[in-house]
């Protein structure tokens, strides 16, 4: 049960955090140019964005859940299970961020998820 809760916190924390950050970054808007000065201005806009600061604690929660999980379970179980976040993140991108996830993209995401699980399992 605690492992299930830990995995839920790990996966939902990182995906919700990244979704909040993506939403924030979209409202910040891209840097005018990819030059140091423009990127610094872009970062200054980012740290004034509320969604960015919503995402950061969620990602910290996810990291904390990872540390707890690693103290309970072997790494060869925890990291492959965390590969599920590719699928959960894509669902979030589709239903929360309104991104158009085509069949090709879904197929790619599922292959990546399986691949990461296999690589992490060793």
């Amino acid at each position, binding site marked *: 049960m605690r492992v299930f809760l830990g995995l839920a916190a790990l996966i939902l924390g990182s995906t919700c955090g*990244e*979704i909040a*950050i*993506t939403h924030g*970054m*979209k*409202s*910040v*808007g*891209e*840097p*005018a140019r*990819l030059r140091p000065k*423009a*990127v610094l*201005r*872009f*970062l200054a*806009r*980012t740290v004034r964005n509320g969604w960015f600061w919503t995402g950061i604690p969620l990602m910290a929660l996810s990291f904390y859940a990872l540390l707890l999980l690693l103290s309970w379970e072997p790494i060869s179980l925890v990291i492959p299970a965390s590969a599920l976040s*590719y699928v959960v*993140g*894509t669902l*979030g*991108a*589709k239903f929360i*961020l*309104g*991104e*158009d*996830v*085509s069949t*090709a*993209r879904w*197929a*790619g*995401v*599922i*292959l*990546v*998820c*399986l*691949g*990461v*699980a*296999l*690589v*992490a*399992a*060793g």
Partner: protein
Amino acid sequence: MASEKRLRIKTLVMVLLMVVCANAGDLLLKRGMAQIGAVELTAHGIAQAFVQTVASPTIWVAISFLIGFMVSYMTVLSWADYSYVMPAGAFGYAVLTFLAVIFLHEAVSPRRWVGVVLICVGVLLVGQTKPRTTEVPSEAVA
């Protein structure tokens, strides 16, 4: 469309930068912590490890790379889809496996090679889709 091509190229460059920074950061962090040695889980051991960590140049270089990763990740998310960037970033696992074989002469299990192939095919599939499917908001004036 020229702007579409430009979008693809700058997304690709940023994703590569992300992958390079994340891998370099993780490898250096691992090397830095290995130099410090196993941390004893006592108040004294943790305090000592903390002092050694902040005094280690390797750790600081690692942290700079990880900051570079975070900045490139946020930058690419400012124009590209999350569902495009996130799976594309998994390419790093494949790169790491190749690096481990070439430089560290690590033995890689068949299961892991299957995983690397799946990741590469998956990333290629995602890479073919449009990097951005949501509406472009009014460009932030910089």
